[in-house]
């Protein structure tokens, strides 16, 4: 195949151990663009609506997309998908590194796992040799330790993805780890892997990827390399990665501190990027084919503990496990990052859950007795270490928190749900949306719960006005179309944002690889199809009107920011409702947030409209009809 695809899809029935090979369905990839798109369609088609995310009917998909491994700016991503145990809806998460490209070099575009293995196994792939191998030896050990061991046992040239004890034990926010520090963290993909008793995937291959027009691609990439080498932001990026934005976040009142109580962290200087580079950096580390190496491979040195190696903490982890926990030493943040990595927990959700527990402890909702004699105080590494141990082994109240902050709040009661900082069960990323209304709307409406990667609007909010909400919904819709496209193509988004690579250029590369000859607008339309499908899927599984699911926790709209540059600021309930109304209108959904037939038919999703209608959750027709273009291309006003 000369279209960037490797050609083979594997279906692995873990219950029976049967492995079947199929030619990759090119039409499916053409229509849904691979990655997140193909995952959304397969989950919609193949998982029964009443299937338990932990059950054998849930499927677990590894998809390498179209552009991964194809000599294109940071074509390195691997997309994982399954019904999320955290949100009970469509779940997908991706990571960089080298796994996806290696899967293609071994000849595979997609792995689909069904069933549940009777005993722990790992999938071994060496070109045509594909085997489920016994993983008894690796079960129970940390993600990073397991990767090290597997490399020793199989060979250094294997690319390996593993889960840790969190995933094995069914902690709902477990991640998949690869390359000693790259994680597919969100939506509990590691949890699903663990529930299927699949400890790891190890792959090696030496095949070639063929593309439609290699000469044109080579020429384009050479031009991009020469251009971006001169880009003024290249050098700071390579040197510091994302860790340096903590201070800016703090200065501009979006950095979560103390479980999102405030957006001002007085000790920001102790967890900022310069501390990381000065005290922890070992080497800069890049994903496959990426020449801006934002990965920072580091060590954490904490007295009385072994020196540990990890990648990060990057911005999100420094925020969610740093300021949000009140940590006052970059080495402590790095150590928590390492613990979460090795236990196999998503550091964003893990940080959010720990912060929530800390506030519960502060308020007396959980006690020293509950914590086996330990306290859980802001900034205490010992306390965090013990708490995480309780969570990962589901000891005592650890079991409550292993379900994420939403489920823990249901157990604890006492109004704690007001400060459980999550949407749809998934914890917020490292930005507070109270004084950045577009960001809050992004969290509320993201199809996998409160995650920043679908739409990130902090600078938009600053440019358009942080007090106002008018017009923000259309921008969020546009961003929710363009940003997930990168997850669909399995490439990194940072190039687009940071180094002036235009969407048109990326689509041009896509055309060189596939020969599809599509435009950016067509790609955006595909992204809108995917977005509507995941929404329908969510509604079909959770059977309530859409609006119910889209509200943020009370803290986000009832409490004002109490300190720092954002003191006294915060959106009102009316503003939040108004944004939601505008958002649904911009999407062509009804006032309850349910997709209408008109918009679904326009996106060729008639089948989804029929299914919604059957269960009574199809949106009511909108009197004025749906807008012809959903999501306005964002043209910054003041930026």
């Amino acid at each position, binding site marked *: 195949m000369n279209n960037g695809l490797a050609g083979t899809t594997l279906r692995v029935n873990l219950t029976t151990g049967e492995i079947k090979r199929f030619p990759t369905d090119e039409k499916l990839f053409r229509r849904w663009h691979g990655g997140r798109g193909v995952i959304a369609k397969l989950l919609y088609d193949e998982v029964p609506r009443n299937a338990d995310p932990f059950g054998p009917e849930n499927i677990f998909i590894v998809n390498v997309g179209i552009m991964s491994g194809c000599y294109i700016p940071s074509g390195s991503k691997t997309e994982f998908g399954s019904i999320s145990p955290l949100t009970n809806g469509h779940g997908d998460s991706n990571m960089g590194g080298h796994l996806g490209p290696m899967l293609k070099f071994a000849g595979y575009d997609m792995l689909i796992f069904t069933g549940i293995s009777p005993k722990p196994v790992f999938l071994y792939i060496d070109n045509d040799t594909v085997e489920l191998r016994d993983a008894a030896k690796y079960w129970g050990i940390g993600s990073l330790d397991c990767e090290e061991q597997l490399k020793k046992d199989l060979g250094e040239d294997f690319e390996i993805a593993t889960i840790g004890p969190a995933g094995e034990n069914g902690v709902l926010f477990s991640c998949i780890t690869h390359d000693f520090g790259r994680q597919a963290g969100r939506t509990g993909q590691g949890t699903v892997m663990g529930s299927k008793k699949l400890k790891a995937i190890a792959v090696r291959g*030496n095949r070639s990827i063929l593309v439609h027009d290699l000469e044109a691609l080579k020429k384009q990439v050479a031009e991009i390399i020469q251009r971006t080498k001169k880009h003024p932001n290249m050098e700071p990026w390579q040197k510091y990665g994302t860790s340096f934005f903590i201070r800016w976040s703090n200065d501009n009142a979006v950095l979560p501190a103390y479980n999102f109580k405030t957006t001002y962290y007085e000790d920001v200087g102790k967890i900022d990027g310069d501390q990381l580079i000065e005290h922890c950096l070992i080497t800069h*580390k890049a994903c496959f084919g990426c020449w801006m190496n934002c990965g920072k491979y580091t060590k954490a040195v904490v007295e009385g503990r072994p020196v540990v190696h990890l990648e990060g903490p990057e911005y999100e982890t420094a925020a969610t496990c740093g300021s949000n926990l009140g940590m006052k030493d970059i080495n402590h943040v790095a150590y928590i990052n390492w613990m979460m990595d090795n236990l196999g927990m998503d550091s964003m959700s893990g940080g959010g859950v720990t912060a929530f527990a800390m506030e519960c402890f502060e308020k007396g909702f959980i006690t020293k007795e509950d914590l086996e004699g330990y306290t859980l105080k802001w900034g205490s590494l010992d306390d965090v270490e013990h708490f995480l141990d309780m969570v990962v082994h589901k000891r005592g109240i650890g079991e409550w928190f292993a379900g994420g902050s939403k489920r823990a709040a249901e157990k604890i009661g006492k109004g704690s749900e007001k400060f459980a900082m999550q949407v749809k069960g998934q914890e917020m990323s490292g930005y507070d949306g109270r004084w950045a209304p577009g960001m809050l709307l992004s969290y509320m409406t993201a199809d996998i719960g409160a995650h920043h990667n679908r739409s990130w609007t902090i600078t938009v909010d600053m440019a358009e006005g942080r007090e106002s909400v008018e017009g923000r919904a259309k921008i969020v819709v546009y961003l929710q179309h363009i940003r997930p496209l990168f997850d669909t193509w399995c490439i990194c988004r940072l190039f687009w944002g940071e180094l002036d690579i235009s969407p048109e250029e990326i689509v041009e590369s896509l055309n060189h690889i596939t020969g599809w000859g599509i435009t950016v607008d067509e790609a955006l339309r595909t992204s809108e199809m995917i977005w509507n499908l995941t929404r329908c899927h969510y509604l079909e599984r959770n059977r309530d009107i859409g609006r119910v699911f889209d509200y943020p926790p009370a803290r986000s709209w009832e409490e004002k920011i109490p300190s720092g540059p954002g003191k006294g600021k915060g959106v009102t309930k009316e503003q939040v409702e108004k944004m939601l109304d505008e958002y649904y209108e911009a999407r062509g959904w009804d006032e309850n947030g349910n997709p209408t037939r008109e918009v679904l038919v326009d996106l060729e999703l008639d089948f989804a409209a029929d299914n919604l209608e059957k269960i009574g959750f199809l949106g009511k027709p909108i009197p004025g009809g749906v807008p012809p273009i959903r999501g306005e291309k964002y043209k910054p006003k003041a930026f």
Partner: protein
Amino acid sequence: MRIKVNRDNCTGCRLCLQICAIEHFSEINPKKAALRIEAKFPDPGKFRPFICTQCGKCAEVCPEDAIYQNEVGGYIVDKEKCTNCGDCIVACPMDVICQHPDLGYVIKCDFCMECTKVCNTNALVEWERKPTAKETEARNE
């Protein structure tokens, strides 16, 4: 002309491996590259690129005389003469000559310098060695 390796600069992105295969085989396949990157993780956490130094050991041991030196000092594999016996692979001190099941000859660096053009961290740089005083003297004579 030489390729200079600043090994601490390598970030393991493998662009050099990709361009090497693209340049010589019009395929994307890091396993068809005539250089390699060693990644030592988790401890100590370092990448180290290995490239051909054009030392000529491969040509010395080749039983078929299939490796010859070109005008810029690169040792080139004659694909017609090479029998893929692998003697050069054993002799290579950098371990950068390899075989691939698609090919009936060994893959060896031909000094094309493409890898240095894509490296964005200056781990691999094209470098003109300054002649020593003795060489300058010899040239002037």
